[in-house]
């Protein structure tokens, strides 16, 4: 089974609708579902090895976030009865509920975005944006930044090692280290600007600014729109029910 990018985006929209409009008790099963989908359902599985590591990092982040948000708010938001006491610390009911609400909402919002990007090649996303009418220059920027993203960490390591060998104070006090920051950034920026200018000239010489059509990209994937329709309908129903609930209160 295959889901096109618009289908996945409508799923993200559904997740965001739930995150903002439904109580945290409803959103916890949604988070579990998202995690299950990311590991078992092909269209939502991570497409690269590094995308898989994002999940493990995010899981640690999410667990820590829940503990910190619930704990801190339980202590600081002193409203309602004391739910429990830990040694000499009182945790209040309102604070604990607020912490849970915020952390579950944030995890659902972030996880849906993570699942979307982990299961979609960024180049495909850029092409999709172009097919929607985004200027070609935007897509070029995205693709070129992917190139720089691959190059820069390696270049930073090179410059760092070279400056350290020349005696740059990379391990001295904070002021000296700040100076070393400048010593590393300067050659990095200079070499990258030279490269940017050269690439820019090459683009201009190839008549980049003359080519402005997006027509060649408008070859949408031949998928059915059932999923898109289902996700969007579900989002609309949740919004309508929430408005009715809000009006009746």
């Amino acid at each position, binding site marked *: 089974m295959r889901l096109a990018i618009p289908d996945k985006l409508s799923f993200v929209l559904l997740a965001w609708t739930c995150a903002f409009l439904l109580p945290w008790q409803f959103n916890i099963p949604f988070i579990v579902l998202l995690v299950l989908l990311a590991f078992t359902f092909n269209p939502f599985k991570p497409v690269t090895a590094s995308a898989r590591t994002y999940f493990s990092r995010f899981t640690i982040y999410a667990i820590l976030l829940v503990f910190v948000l619930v704990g801190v708010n339980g202590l600081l938001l002193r409203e309602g009865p004391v739910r429990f006491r830990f040694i000499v610390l009182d945790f209040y009911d309102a604070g604990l509920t607020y912490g849970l609400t915020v952390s579950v909402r944030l995890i659902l919002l972030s996880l849906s975005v993570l699942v979307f990007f982990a299961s979609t090649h960024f180049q495909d996303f850029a092409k999709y944006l172009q097919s929607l009418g985004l200027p070609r220059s935007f897509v070029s920027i995205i693709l070129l930044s992917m190139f720089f*993203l691959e190059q820069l*960490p390696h270049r930073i390591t090179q410059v760092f090692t070279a400056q350290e060998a020349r005696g740059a104070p990379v391990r001295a006090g904070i002021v000296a280290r700040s100076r070393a920051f400048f010593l590393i950034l300067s050659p990095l920026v200079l070499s990258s600007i030279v490269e940017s200018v050269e690439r*820019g000239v090459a683009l201009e010489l190839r008549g980049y600014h003359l080519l402005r059509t997006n027509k060649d990209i408008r070859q949408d994937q031949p998928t059915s729109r059932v999923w898109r329709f289902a996700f969007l309908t579900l989002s609309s129903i949740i919004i309508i029910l929430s408005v009715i609930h809000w009006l009746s209160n």
Partner: protein
Amino acid sequence: MTLREKVRTELSGSAIPFIAFGIALNLTVGQITIALKIPLYLDSIGTILVAVLVGPYAGIITGSFANLMAAAFGNPTMMFFIPVVIVIGAFTGFLANIGWFKRWYLCVLGGILQGILAAIVSAPISSYLFGGTMMAGTDALVYFFRAMGNNILTSVFYQGLTSDPVDKTVSYLIVFFLVKNLPLRLVSKFKGASNVVS
């Protein structure tokens, strides 16, 4: 000149690779600050550099795409701060256009103003979406202000006012000195050359 034409003029062929570099710099500068153990984010240096040398729209695009790509590469929470980087790109471009990047003391003043503006825009996002907990060192400040009896929004705003002006002023000064040290023949290739050269 319409907005579309202004954006199109800024996004000429030569600016595109530089904007791409700015995005990558925003995403990788953390590698240097971590290696040097510098207690600042400095993650808008690319946006500021592009906004100064190319223009405000290019700065906005750099910041927005950097956050979008950060979300794509494992940090989805960055996406919620796109409004903040839009303000950073636009305000820096504006300051550069009126000549504030020609004098270091104007850069300091600009950095402080930028920090305040960033704090104003980021406070509602941090407080509503994150409950004031960003899982960073600055959270201690938020908890401190909350323990003093302030609500979450006020505490996050005070935390922003405490740390953002420092971060932005340092970023502005770094960009100022970086640009000053660039050869004139390179700077002159950019549309914003007149923003930095008297």
